[in-house]
């Protein structure tokens, strides 16, 4: 069976520590499953094995793809070889990539939308309102969250710090399986940024 399984690796230019492995057979047809650590990976026999590879920090299994994030400066080639080996061994075992229980414990896009909106309403917007800011949830698609910042956040020099260190963290704490969080704000059009960049 080994020889029939083709695995192609693709490193994302925007995230060089992340590599997507396209497998020629389906791994998880029910959607997308994300595991940020070994503890979470207990719900996925495949992810648990992948966390056994040195430097692996996150695993996403989606359809016939496995996306691995690693830390450190080691080149991808040896890590990719190990990932391919683990995936092939796993497929031989006939175990599911993701447990049946996992699906019942995860959320659909609609459920994510509801939960993120609640986070925005109860945690994020009351806080950024102190700077005249606001954050709108625009959409959730395929586990990806699209948001827009307004008021004092639009064009603010610290908007990305607030987004990546604060908003993203709050979402991931509540919903670890969320994929990317994308800011579609036109920051150049902000007319009242709380912190206007001014120090060269």
């Amino acid at each position, binding site marked *: 069976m080994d020889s029939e399984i083709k695995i192609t690796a693709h490193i994302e*230019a*925007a*995230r*060089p*520590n*992340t590599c997507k492995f396209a497998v020629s057979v389906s791994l998880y047809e029910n959607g997308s499953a994300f595991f940020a650590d070994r503890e979470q990976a207990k719900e996925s026999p495949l992810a648990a094995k992948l966390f056994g590879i040195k430097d692996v*920090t996150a695993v996403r299994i989606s359809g016939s793809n496995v996306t691995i*994030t*690693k*830390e*450190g*400066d080691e080149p991808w080639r040896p890590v990719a070889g190990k990932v391919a080996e683990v995936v092939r061994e796993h497929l031989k075992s006939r175990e599911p990539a993701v447990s049946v229980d996992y699906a019942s414990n995860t959320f659909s896009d609609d459920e994510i939308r509801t939960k993120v909106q609640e986070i925005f309403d109860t*945690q*994020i917007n009351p*806080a*950024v309102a*102190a*700077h005249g*800011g606001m954050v709108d949830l625009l959409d959730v698609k395929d586990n990806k969250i699209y948001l827009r910042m307004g008021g004092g956040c639009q*064009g603010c*020099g*610290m*908007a*990305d*710090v*607030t987004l*990546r*260190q*604060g*908003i993203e*963290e*709050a979402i991931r*704490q509540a919903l670890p399986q969320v994929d990317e969080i994308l800011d579609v704000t036109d920051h*150049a059009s*902000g*007319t*009242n*940024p709380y*912190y*206007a*960049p*001014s*120090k*060269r």
Partner: protein
Amino acid sequence: MARILLLLPTTTYRATDFIEAAQRLGVHVTVASEEKNVLESKNPEGYLKLNFEDLGSVHRSVLEFSKRYPFDAVLGMDDTTVIAAAAISHALSLKSNSLESVKSARNKRLMREAFSRENLPIPNFQSFSINENPERIASKSRYPCVLKPTLLSASQGVMRVNGPNELYSAWERLRKIIQAQKTSSEVLVEDFISGQEVALEGLLEGSQLRVLALFDKPDPLEGPFFEETIYVRPSRLDSRMQEEVIACAARATKALGLETGPVHAELRINEEGPWIIEIAARPIGGRCSRALRFGLGISLEELIIRQALGFETCSLQVDPTPSGVMMIPVPRPGILKKISGVEEAKAVPGVVDILLATHIGQQLVPLPEGSSYFGFIFCREQTPQIVEERLRVAYNKLKFEVESTDNNLPDRVLESCHETT
């Protein structure tokens, strides 16, 4: 996973580029700013409030914080944070420049004295207090000369004067700027050095200078103020002069005792060869770093973080495609009402991006009082000449509507102007 401490003042232009770079590398980040982030409670390990000016309190806060969240590197990326970054790094036994070397790079008098001790080619200089009688200064100065506040950056307060009468008025203007900025009263008065100016971007490793880029500045900087506009690379200087420039910059880093991390040097070139004007222990300012890419699209910020974490960087060579950036000059003093022509400017062949750093309704304050960047035009083309031409074409597409205000800027406006690079 590695953790870095980024010292990012709330007024920085650089937060986005550094946060993006850290994300790409997958490292944990703690952002230290002089004000508390409104979402600190959501991510206590992600934020730290620090008063960068008070090294004692910085020291205490970071030591306490690092017991829970140890750091692998500390990075200060502008003039207000490099000294604090060096102090923190020493306290945590992390790789860093010495505090003395960073302080010398931050203070124009200390810098000139260090260069002088090593017989580097620098203009003759004298140091005065802004509170001294300008008539005395005028009588002791040679003309043309340049007035430079020792602790302000990027040409803020820098003025060329051609004789005693100009010096009197410039001195009074500078006194107001220094007062508004609450900065050191010390002022350098140094000979004006004519010639072409270049900027060198480098990375120090074990005191050895690795040149990342040498930029030509094709617009003459003759004064009375020194607003920077176009940077283009690779330099069109002949190879012999480029070698002399690089050798001069390398000597300057050694004279200051800098050993590691990014450096940004500015030099002038005339018939006598290169003159070192300044060197800073930080990367190029504003968003200008976007004119550089390394390896397969790595940013300067990522290169800097990689070096600080001890990752390999030597194989990451600068993309050889000629590139450049134009720092859009502040059109005139007043309130910005409208900017148009941005899409037309973006459509100019070779222009890869335009970033506006000014918002509608903002008070515009040109040099020497001002300090903010208006915006940036980035271009990549086949030759440096074409890059320069395209930047000018794109700039000429931009139209600004500015509502005039009183030329005598009120103190509240001066106080809102932060120092610059």
